[in-house]
């Protein structure tokens, strides 16, 4: 059960959010080539540990929230706005 601290709305139940996946992948330049786009669209680090990811506050303010969450314990270390650079704990 996750309680996600939305930067705009405060701590809200996970049920209000829509998950949008890994926030570390970034869109390559248009001419970056097929391998770069293959990696962007399809491959993921899929760590067992801290994961930086998007949660869309769909039933709230409708902003995209960046979340640092642990995929084994489900603990949340930090949340922020899309442009924030969040600190990821060491382990």
């Amino acid at each position: 059960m996750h309680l996600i601290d939305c930067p705009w709305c405060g701590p809200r139940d996970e049920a209000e959010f829509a998950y949008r996946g890994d926030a570390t992948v970034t869109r390559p330049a248009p001419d970056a080539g097929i391998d770069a786009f293959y990696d962007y669209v399809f491959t993921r680090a899929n760590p067992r540990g801290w994961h930086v990811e998007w949660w869309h506050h769909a039933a709230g303010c409708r902003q995209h929230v960046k979340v640092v969450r642990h995929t084994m314990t489900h603990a949340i270390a930090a949340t922020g706005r899309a442009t924030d650079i969040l600190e990821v704990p060491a382990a």
Partner: protein
Amino acid sequence: MTRYSGLRLLGHALSGHARWPRAWRAPDPKPSYDVVIIGGGGHGLASAYYLAKEHGITNVAVVEKGPIGLGNTGRNTTIVRSNYLFPENNHFYEWSLKLWEGLEQDLNFNVMMSQRGVLNLFHSDSQRAASARRGNSMRLNGIDAELLDREQVKAMVPLLDYDNARFPVFGGLLQRRGGTARHDAVAWGFARAADARGVDIIQHCEVTGIRREGGRVTGVETTRGFIGARKVGIAVAGNTSRVAAMAGLRLPIESHVLQAFVTEGLKPLVDMVVTFGAGHFYISQSDKGGLVFGGGLDGYNSYAQRGSLPTVEHVWAAGVAMMPCLSRLRVLRQWGGVMDMTMDGSPLICRTPVEGLYLNGGWCYGGFKATPGSGWCFAHTIANDAPHRFNAAMTIERFREGRAIDERGAGPYPWAQ
């Protein structure tokens, strides 16, 4: 191997069942093998069995970090079927179903395969059209499928909410040859039969590294030391990304949690597998009488074998919408498993860019039914260093080449697959 039979059961009953021989050995790892399979779930064990049986490769070890069969094999809702739309999938799953049909005789083990039928409900005209299309695709590929109208469904499963205001039942797509099997027994049956053919099953031995020399696999590092191997096969389900990363691979896979539930025991209530078409919900009844059911993924990356309460509520709500009488029941047990979700919802049984390293994974929430077919095709791929036609499309490269096998049409969003 002591053959199991009715007579033997009777004989052992006389000695209070205290003298059964152990079903498989507990060997120490040898310095090296022809093939090492990582992961002692149903898929890893089946792969070892078919390597020995179909290809005469018996110098094989299955290396499992815990006891065998306690991963997704021991956590699933045991539905077996081959009702897929795309030929790449339905040929493969149909071959798996055919293996299921002869599995108990082949393994000399009661896996409690019960072809009680799998019924997918539909609740609108457009869903009926989609079901008819899938049924036609199955029949064109030689698989049994029947499109039932509302009255035919009513005669089979009377307790559904046929006149639900939002989701009235319009009919269903039935695969009579589908059904359920006993999950644990599948792991045990393959383990015992593989062991009898000389395969070493090494439990409590975690793989921590994949050793390579000049781009070729030479063996695996484990918590019980280095084990050499000419070929290594990965079959670790939810841990696929982590184990593949040991060989420097980055895969189109995310790990997600899926939950399952069992109610208190009841007299017979549903005698087939029924799935809801207006939400993610499927149900069957175990031989002990408990209703076994589940729904969709929790929907976020997770390696925890447990999920969240909103999903619990959602699954039960879908169940009660389909079958209102469920609201009176108590759920006794609930758990989760870690799904190896691919970017198109279809699996991988293939070679990898590392020579001698083979991959079996990406089973999503539907790999139990694949167990015999997956082991059979993986063994073929490892033995011949080339896929069988049943798994030829199940490669990693398909994503790069634009040949994704996306049954649901959900796109590269594993949490939506």
